[in-house]
């Protein structure tokens, strides 16, 4: 990186100490045709050559339409799914090929909160046991100390500890999401993947849970990878945002700047069509034609060219690389909407 031409915009060089998660050329392919008579294997390229850094203490959000590969990327970073190719570093350590047993130790530091507060809690377990489970599995706490910690956690996420002997069905959606959060922070993790963690909640409850996530981040010094399709929520909670389209990152940048001045035509379309609660907002909407193509057979060149209002001939043949256009912004487009 030392020989960068000074006239070229270059990415801000972040001290290795400040990076918590780094992935390099990460790929995750799912085979779709693997039958006896099909000589050619076909793949869904859910994550196709993605590199990014998540800095300590920040909230990095992934946005994009369904089928863009957001959740697969998140799950692959935690090695809940094995990567097809590429490298994953956590806290400076290469965890790409760690054995299961070693991975389990690292998992103390990386936890997940899922979207569905109804499906992600075992209906036959009491709340107390759900929150105590991480300690029991890791044999870190037991008896009185465990009980004290569970009560502490319940209070921390705003649940009434006297209800600890109840079952999940006795709690509302928002409260269940709090249980999921208590379980996720139980072992004092450094990194939390929140996969559509507030998407299923009603707006008044969503605000409560967002407030809780922000509070916990400050108190416990957490780093979030936040996956969501609600752009208002993303703007509120993120420091930086990555925009995904068909398995690739098309733009990465600081959230306010990216919302105000998107560089990729896809980002611009996403943001302009986001419904705002203001009936007088007469915005110029960029309404995209058609829908996201199938990731098993993505378009040639720039994958977005089939829906892009600015597409030229070169876009059909040459895939644009994700390159920095300023310190905090990278974009993969031949004709970005802004220049640095």
């Amino acid at each position: 990186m030392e020989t960068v031409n000074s006239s070229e915009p270059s990415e801000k060089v972040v001290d290795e100490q400040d990076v918590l998660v780094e992935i390099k050329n990460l790929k995750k392919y799912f085979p779709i045709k693997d039958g006896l008579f099909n000589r050619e294997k076909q793949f869904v390229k859910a994550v196709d050559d993605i590199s990014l850094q998540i800095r300590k203490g920040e909230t990095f959000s992934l946005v994009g339409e369904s089928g863009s590969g957001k959740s697969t990327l998140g799950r692959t970073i935690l090695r809940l799914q094995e990567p097809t190719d590429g490298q994953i570093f956590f806290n400076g350590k290469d965890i790409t090929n760690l054995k299961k047993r070693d991975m389990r130790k690292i998992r103390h530091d990386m936890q997940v909160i899922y979207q569905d507060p109804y499906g992600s809690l075992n209906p036959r377990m009491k709340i107390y046991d759900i929150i105590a489970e991480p300690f029991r599995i890791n044999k870190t706490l037991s008896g009185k100390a465990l009980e004290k910690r569970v009560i502490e956690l319940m209070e921390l996420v705003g649940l009434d500890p006297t209800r600890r002997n109840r079952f999940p069905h006795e709690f509302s959606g928002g409260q269940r999401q709090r249980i999921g959060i208590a379980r996720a922070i139980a072992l004092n993790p450094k990194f939390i993947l929140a996969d559509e963690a507030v998407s299923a909640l009603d707006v008044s409850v969503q605000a409560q849970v967002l407030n809780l996530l922000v509070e916990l981040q400050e108190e416990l010094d957490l780093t979030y990878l936040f996956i969501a399709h609600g752009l208002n929520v993303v703007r509120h909670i993120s420091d930086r945002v990555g925009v995904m389209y068909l398995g690739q990152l098309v733009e990465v940048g600081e959230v306010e700047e990216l919302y105000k001045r998107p560089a990729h035509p896809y980002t611009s379309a996403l943001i302009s069509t986001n419904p705002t609660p203001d009936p007088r907002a007469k915005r110029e909407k960029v309404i995209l034609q058609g829908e996201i193509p199938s990731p098993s057979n993505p378009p040639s060149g720039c994958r977005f060219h089939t829906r892009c209002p600015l597409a030229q001939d070169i876009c059909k043949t040459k895939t644009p690389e994700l390159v920095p256009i300023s310190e905090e912004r990278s974009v993969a487009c031949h004709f970005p909407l802004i220049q640095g």
Partner: protein
Amino acid sequence: MQPILKVDNLCVDFNSDGKKIRALDNISFDVKQGETVCIVGESGSGKSVTSLSIMRLLEYENGSIASGEILFEGEDLAQKTQHDMRDIRGNDISIIFQEPMTALNPVFTIGRQLMEGVMRHKKVSKDEAYNRALELLELVGINDVKVRMKQHPHELSGGMRQRIMIAIALACNPKLLIADEPTTALDVTIEAQIINLLNELKEKINMSIIFITHDMGVAAEIADKIIVMYAGKVVEEGTVYQIFDEPTHPYTKGLLQSIPTEKEGRKQKLYSIEGTIPSLTDLPTGCRFHPRCEFATDQCRQVEPSLQDVNGRKVACWNYDKVIGKDKVES
């Protein structure tokens, strides 16, 4: 202008293990010709029950109309038999649902499903129905219409299926279209396409729309009038500008304030309504919103407020003047 639909003091009960649960309690509102009325509220507020009642699909879900009237062009739908309703549903009033994946029949072609409604309600030949189906597909912005006619639902994407649902709903030129969270399952880019389409269609064929949503952002883009529901009651009704400019019910105000917008600083504490919507089997006394309301007084805890006219809109709150007043002080 005479309203095309007038819902008057509608009460709806559901039967659950022999117990009656009142899901709608004295709901009244009307819809004028060419008007889009948005019903907003959180899960459990009764939005969907309202749409099922108008369509009289309630009976298939263990519900029944306890009292009140649903006047559609002067005729009371609440008194109709299911047999009569069959001539109205899909003809004068149509509905589209949230799930475009499951609302279409997977074993029939798109063409057959489009023609079914036309042939059921209008005296037309098969050829005429076929041509009408092609016309409808074009109307909702689908290309290669002849190919689409022969396809089955699984061959189409979510957004495309929702367009087909809209085409089927429009088949007989309904006077009223009920759209029950039609964009909730769709991505924002596709949502924008569908909202655009509905706004265009409304102008083209001058129909009335009841649009049910939990997303105030969507309501802002499509509504002429907004009805806010909470725990089976209408708590506020007004034009889209009245509701967004000066919400008068504390719940409406709270809902709007809970939405993260660019005005709040990033990661700053969001306003949130404490607690959750009460269960219909365990409703609080007095105003149903009082346990979550910052303006609640003893009167609110004891006596339920009714929907009353205030400055050209309707609100059910004892302390609405304080809600408005507080806003003025802040700004």
